[in-house]
């Protein structure tokens, strides 16, 4: 961290390298110094602290994917991890690296947002601070981290009983960054929706919560029609970017479809969990 402070914006922290090294290869990033975080063993652990799962920023995606506590305490994260790239990418790629890179199409930022994760950052000048996921993602590949700061851990609260989750995405090819993805968490109480949350990737510079859908579903019956209506309603306000892979209208269509599917699946899993 002292190195990051010394070299300022000329230095970049290197986590798993699965995003930064391609940027170096393509000469899209040309830092004069790389600070390898792999030597900091404290960043590589997964621990349970009371109701929180605390994941070190340098935990490799593949090891998180295999970890029993992740499956038990953060099922949405466990569902999201296999969707990232390919096995060889996940064996090097890290949880903290993906969050700090903040690709708008990436899975983990949306998961962190949806689960209200707390992201802990540290710098040698100012010590430690906690940033909520909602405040962490600022824009396209941009986070609240200062140049001399690194993400050290992610804290995820255990889901309350009766909660189900799901994540799905549509990509051109298996393992590619998705055009659009949706993640949903639904909690049922007495057969009604007590809490529904849904987040989207690929529709904006940052992962976004579909708050219109969430409000509509609050207290509603978890029926297929309710989810479809909420998803359609929430999709109307989106203006996703268009590119070679799909128009804005197509992405809006995918967003509605994926919100509906993940909400339905999450509700089904919530019923099974209850």
């Amino acid at each position, binding site marked *: 961290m002292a190195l990051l402070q010394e070299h300022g914006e000329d230095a970049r922290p290197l986590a798993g390298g699965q995003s930064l*090294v391609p940027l170096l290869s*393509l000469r899209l990033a040309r830092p004069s110094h790389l600070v390898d975080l792999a030597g900091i063993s404290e960043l590589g652990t997964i621990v349970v602290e009371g109701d929180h799962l605390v994941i070190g920023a340098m935990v*490799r995606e593949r090891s998180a994917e295999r970890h029993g506590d992740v499956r038990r305490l953060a099922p949405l994260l466990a569902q999201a991890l296999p969707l990232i790239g*390919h096995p*060889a990418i996940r064996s090097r790629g890290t949880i903290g690296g993906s969050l700090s890179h903040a690709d708008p199409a990436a899975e983990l930022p949306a998961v962190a947002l949806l689960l209200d994760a707390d992201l802990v950052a540290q710098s040698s000048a100012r010590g430690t601070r906690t940033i909520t996921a909602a405040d962490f993602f600022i824009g396209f590949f941009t986070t609240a981290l200062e140049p001399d700061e690194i993400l050290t851990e992610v804290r995820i609260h255990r889901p309350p009983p009766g909660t189900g989750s799901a994540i799905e995405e549509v990509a051109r090819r298996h393992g590619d960054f998705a055009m659009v993805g949706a993640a949903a968490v639904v909690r049922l109480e007495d057969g009604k929706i007590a809490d529904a949350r849904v987040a989207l990737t690929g529709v904006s510079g940052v992962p976004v919560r579909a708050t219109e859908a969430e409000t509509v579903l609050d207290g509603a019956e978890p029926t297929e029609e309710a989810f479809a209506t909420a998803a359609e309603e929430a999709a109307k306000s989106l203006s996703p970017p268009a590119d070679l892979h799909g128009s804005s209208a197509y992405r809006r269509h995918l967003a509605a479809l994926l919100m509906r599917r993940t909400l339905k699946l999450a509700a089904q899993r919530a019923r099974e969990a209850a």
Partner: protein
Amino acid sequence: MSTFDVELTVNGTSRQGSVEPRRTLADFLREDLGLTGTHLGCEHGVCGACTVLVNGEPARSCLMLAVQARGADILTVEGLATDGVMNPLQQAMWESHGFQCGFCTPGFLMQITALLAENPNPGEAEIREALSGNLCRCTGYESIVNGVLRAAGHDGSPIEPQH
């Protein structure tokens, strides 16, 4: 440019070198150690040709810097055969015609080695999932999947086409 000393184990042998920090593991293996079995296709982590095992886990050697591999145990395609005799996976791939031009083969072999170490009896879907990050422009993948099934102890008869 300053250099860093790198000491690591490659295919069971301790190796060392002195590298610029920008040197990738793939270039270190090929240029400094002369192990040209690891192929470089896209050089930015898409094609999978440069896949090696790092401490038993598959990794793109073009997306790792040599300095990041200090102290690591690396297995490359050169480490599979013993005294010129192919290992069972290589033999099964050979029998299934699991390659044509052979450029992607080292990456496939290393990824499959990792798959079979974790799951000695994978089904076709699991094989396709595990190999989804390795590109082959010749075979259409059928013969590669057949090779893995054969290596995993299935009889190696052609799989039914999927529709």
